[in-house]
């Protein structure tokens, strides 16, 4: 049997919520809330000094600052302290836009005034793995350090890879999740809610047995996941079965008896995400199961790889026994990520 993996710490930095408590409040307040205006949700109240101290963050990109802050919150939430040695701790992050605006700014500098005007202290920031690297430097995560950049689903991939690394004994604790900096303006027309200026959502993962042994609070347990590349299916031009989808896959993900199946969605107007949810819905119906859909409030804004992480939080706060987080990318990536309620 596969080792069970627990989620024991959550750290969130985003325009609408930078704590689990605020996240829960915004999540629940949707019915009374006015529609979100504007095209970009700014991170107005993010104060890096609060998380990172008064010095030492000046040369870090905004996305790196969000990630470092979310990591600190996650590690504090897990209460993990020095329970694990540096060589037992790894990090795997997903991002699409950590360096998008950084590259644009640097390129503008090169084209206008020359590369010699790039500050040496900031020159390494062009590389998209620097946020994760800064996490390892600050928090002593030496087992491994991986950055995934698959469109929109890289955060879910990171969590699945983190869990797999724990099962393989590559680490005993993994910091996994997603971060984003400023996204391209072109995306603002693609998704219906506004785009978040940036965000990070990081999670502490441990083997469930170790988490229980050290008396940790468990937010949830990672279930099986499925990753596919289905541009034709998500574009609605071919049937899921043609790409190897079967109802058995659904049973593998949520277990044989679960009814209803709870889907956790972003609700950001992406037709490919909607189509993926419909595919699961149809598979459940034909197996005689009901589907209940839980749509994340659009007050959180669309934030690429971080949005599916917030769907995970949505599940953790739901009190349900099991849920399936659904995410797709405009390029055709599909992710179904199973989650279970905290073990007693």
């Amino acid at each position, binding site marked *: 049997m596969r080792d069970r993996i627990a989620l024991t710490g959550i750290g969130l930095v985003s325009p609408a919520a930078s704590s689990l408590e605020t996240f829960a409040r915004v999540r629940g307040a949707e019915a009374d809330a006015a529609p979100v205006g504007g095209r970009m949700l700014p991170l107005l109240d993010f104060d890096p000094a609060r998380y990172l101290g008064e010095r030492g963050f000046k040369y870090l990109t905004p996305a790196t600052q969000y990630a470092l802050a979310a990591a600190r919150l996650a590690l504090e939430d897990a209460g993990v302290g020095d329970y694990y040695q540096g060589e037992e701790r790894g990090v795997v992050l997903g991002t699409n836009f950590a360096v998008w605006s950084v590259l644009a700014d640097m390129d*503008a500098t090169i*084209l206008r005034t020359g590369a*010699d005007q790039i500050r040496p202290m900031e020159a390494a920031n062009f590389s998209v793995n620097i946020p994760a690297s800064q996490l390892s*430097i600050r928090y002593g995560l030496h087992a491994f350090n991986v950055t995934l950049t698959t*469109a929109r689903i890289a955060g879910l991939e990171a969590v699945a890879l983190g869990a797999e690394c724990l099962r393989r004994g590559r680490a005993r604790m993994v910091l996994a999740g997603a971060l984003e900096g400023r996204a391209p303006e072109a*995306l603002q*027309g693609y998704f219906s809610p506004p785009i978040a200026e940036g965000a990070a959502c990081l999670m502490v993962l441990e083997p469930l047995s170790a988490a229980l042994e050290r008396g940790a609070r468990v937010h949830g347990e990672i279930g099986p996941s499925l990753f596919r*590349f289905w*541009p034709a299916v998500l574009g609605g031009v071919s049937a899921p079965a043609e790409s190897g989808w079967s109802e058995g896959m659904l049973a593998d993900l949520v277990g044989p008896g679960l009814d209803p199946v709870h889907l956790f969605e972003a609700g950001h107007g992406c037709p490919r995400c909607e189509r993926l949810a419909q595919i699961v819905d149809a598979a459940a119906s034909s197996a005689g199961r009901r589907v209940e859909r839980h749509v994340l409030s659009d007050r959180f804004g669309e934030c690429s790889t971080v949005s599916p992480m917030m769907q995970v939080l949505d599940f953790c706060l739901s009190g349900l026994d099991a849920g399936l987080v659904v995410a797709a990318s405009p*390029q055709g990536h599909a992710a179904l990520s199973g989650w279970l309620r905290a073990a007693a």
Partner: protein
Amino acid sequence: MTARVLVTGVGLISPLGHSARGYWESLLYRESLPQEHPTLPPALLPNQRYYGIADDEPAEETARAESRATRLAVKATGMALDDAGLIPADLSRTTVGVCFGTGMGESDRLEISHTEAALRGDAPSSFFLSRIAARLAETYGFTGANTTLSTACSAGSYAMALAHERIVSGEAEVMVAGGSEIYSRVGQGCFHRLGALDPVACRPFDVDRKGTVFGEGVAALILESEEHARRRGRRRVLAQFEGAGWSCDGYHTTAPEPTGRWIEAAMLRALSAAGVTPQDIDCVLPHGTGTSLNDLVESQALARVFGDRVRDLKVSAIKGKLGHSGGSAGAVACATAAMILERGVVPPTGNVNVVDAECGLPIRVDAPTPASIRHVLVNAYAFGGNNISVVLGRG
């Protein structure tokens, strides 16, 4: 028992040509030097030397429609499939996934968009890093997991390792793993600003080395479960992907951890994962970028792992002729390791005049070395100390 994962095909597009065979011949026998990239006045970017892929299509024109990073990766994947004797149409019932590494992705289209607002394409093309892998799957109809790794200069090896794990875990039977990196103005500018560029050539382990030199490179490898290869009657196998070891310096964004303890850990973990000892390794493809401290720290870590045996190793630092292809470099090195294992010849290291005695590695610079190689160790390191070592053995 863990399933064996085989390398059954290789596609390579590099400064040494548009084919794996051409690459191999040039790596063994021809000289290779970087050239100037004539795009900006020197006042804006003083060092524009790089090892480029000669391309018969005008880069600026075609990049408006399709990135070179993507176009060349699609071509290299076609070569790899062909080399493996696989026809995409025959794979419709097989789960084929993609793991590709890149540091800068479709940097040509991105950089054009900084100067031209009206670039063809819409929101989806904003995902400039993962579009390469997505287009590979779209072109060849691969519906398995499709993942892009951007662990900077070790991404190509991480892509290989992740592809290996997807096969071992049963998530896929066949994986296309590799990397694609093309010239990036921003990348070149930042390396220049960091003082990390050698003004002459990439000279790994040379006593006069002064930094690295960027090189374009695209590699695609077909990884396949032994069972799948057997079922389709595949006899020719280049190599076996045996295992990988990961670690992170957690020390500095650009400088290596000076004791080398974490890269040593990655090597030892790779040997352990592959089920071999240092005595079983006959050849090492080091990361070897030509950067002063990095090459020294890697040499010292190799000496600790292999002891006196380090002198008996065949060490080939391929970046001397290729330059450093960043997020693709690890995949290019794995492809080279597979070719070494299949052909029983170790390429010489290019552009090295005098091997640094302090590094103390047995690097041959004059001619190829015929040798019976059982296992090859491939190292790849990156900004942030994102380290990986992998072991390939005979197929």
